[in-house]
């Protein structure tokens, strides 16, 4: 990684290609987001007539200001942030704990438990029984209805288990020879070594709690509890094609203008975008392995 020695020509070409490809991919991915951002800063007329590309027209902060000032937005924001923080912490702990024994495939019964989990990835009871379950647990109109059923994502569990399996077995063996208990091994050895996968599943859980609009739609009736993503989805869908065919013109008369719709997308997406850069420092390879070995 240290470019101190002079590189052979082939390597220079190779590296240039790598940078070029990645830069290209970056530009492709950035452009639509810039478009939405530009629209959120533009005047309504310019958006309606398709004039806004990557640069705002009639630049103004009115749309953004309007959205941020809206009390439905503010409430939704607070709810989404607390939901995401609490949900992510709880889920990461729950998943990390549940995944560890599953990584010991040789122990009796473990494969069966693993299959029990995998089975639920493909089969679920469907809308009605899940609704009745939440209702019978007394969780309707309660934010816990969004957290508890989502505590373990089997996908994340498998990622975690997979990662544990990839850790060098020799480390655990030697710790065991030193007489360390399983619990001690997990706390002292496994967790410090697992920063990248903790970061990954934290990100995945955070994003899924933040982005969930379907379960809030199902389990919450009180408009005061609406999380941000459901609020945003409603705003975006207000003037969608399907609603235009709908008879209720009063709904359309009250629909938000384009600028506000784009501003809503921007302000409800940026908070979750900030999570990844924050977690990126845990994606740096192997520093921790080195430290443990040392």
């Amino acid at each position, binding site marked *: 990684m240290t470019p101190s020695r002079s590189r052979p020509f082939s390597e220079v070409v190779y590296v240039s290609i790598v940078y070029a490809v990645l830069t290209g991919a970056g530009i492709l991915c950035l452009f*639509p987001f810039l478009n939405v951002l530009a629209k959120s800063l533009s005047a309504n007329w310019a958006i309606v007539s398709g004039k806004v590309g990557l640069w705002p027209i009639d630049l103004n902060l009115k749309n953004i200001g309007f959205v941020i000032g809206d009390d439905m937005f503010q409430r939704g924001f607070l709810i989404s942030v607390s939901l995401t923080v609490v949900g992510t912490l709880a889920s990461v702990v729950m998943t990390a704990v549940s995944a560890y024994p599953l990584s010991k495939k040789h122990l009796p019964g473990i494969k069966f438990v693993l*299959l029990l989990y995998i089975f639920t990835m493909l089969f*679920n009871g469907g809308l009605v029984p899940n609704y009745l379950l939440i209702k019978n647990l007394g969780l309707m109109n309660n934010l816990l209805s969004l957290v508890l059923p989502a505590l373990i994502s089997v996908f994340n569990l498998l990622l975690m288990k997979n990662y544990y399996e990839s850790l060098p077995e020799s480390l655990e063996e030697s710790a065991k020879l030193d007489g360390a208990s399983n619990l001690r091994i997990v706390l002292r050895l496994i967790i410090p070594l697992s920063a990248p*996968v903790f970061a990954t599943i934290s990100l995945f859980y955070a994003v899924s709690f933040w982005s969930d609009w379907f379960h809030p739609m199902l389990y919450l009736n009180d408009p005061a509890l609406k999380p941000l993503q459901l609020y945003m989805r409603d705003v975006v869908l207000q003037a969608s094609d399907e609603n235009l065919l709908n008879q209720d013109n009063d709904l359309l008369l009250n629909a938000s203008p384009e600028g506000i719709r784009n501003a809503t*997308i921007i302000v409800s997406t940026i908070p979750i975008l900030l999570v990844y850069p924050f977690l990126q420092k845990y994606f740096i390879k192997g520093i921790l392995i080195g430290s443990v070995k040392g």
Partner: protein
Amino acid sequence: MKGRADWLSQIRRNYDLYLLLIPGLVFLLIFKYTPIYGLVIAFQNFNIFKGIGGSEWVGLQQFERLFHSADFGRIMTNTLLISLYKIVFLFPIPIIIAVLLNEVGRMGFKRSIQTIIYLPHFLSWVVIAGLFVNILSPSTGIVNGIIGWFGGEPVNFFMDNHYFRSVLVATAGWKESGWSAIIFIAAIAGLDPELYEAARLDGASRVRQMFHITLPGISTTIVLMLILRIGGVLEAGTEQILLLYNPTVYHTGDVIGTYIYRMGLTSMEYSFSTAVGLFESVIGFFLVIGGNQLSKRITGKSIW
């Protein structure tokens, strides 16, 4: 007998590990296995007011409704083809991105690219569909502008059955590749740096290191992701297609999910939608099991 004693002693020695399983099992029992009784309504004509006990049993009638629908052959073919194209063309992309990012030395560049390429994941298909209709428009779209600049004829991507599946694959790849790469980036981050150090001392080129250290190092993750991906083969991207297609490309773009949506069979047709879901689940389940066995035999790696 000996095996049994061995079992018991293993369990006794690792009782603390077994204790760790309990919270997860309780979670599974309450939130996953309690509601699973709902699957039986696939064999009923379910009336939500009468409940499962009071609803009429109809055997396989709901499944027959799906298999005997006029366009079943077409939607099944489209579903499988679109899914297959997506797997073949899109599955490798996140791996390539992750591997390439691993070759980048400048941290600032690496982090910026990582962050930027995962942006599209956060835009919903409603928003993206609108953007692509403009980008790919034959008259004003930038893509056709480029085609025209090279002297080509403009292509109406959204109305041409030759191109529509490619449009689906390309837009899906654009939206999700950066996001999916995160898993592989994390897997690479978990590799032991000493391996690279040793290879470098042996004079291995960077390309060689990539093929001999990075890729083998993340192969279990690749296998895991591929098996799970194959299990979802009957979900070809319903939401995406609903927002991108139009009647002129039903021939190549109509899949199971979009068909039952258009036929009004998603809303309140509890029994039918459960039957369709069950059909997809059973197929997916066998594919996951088969994929796991196959992978165990070929690569020696497996989920369980």
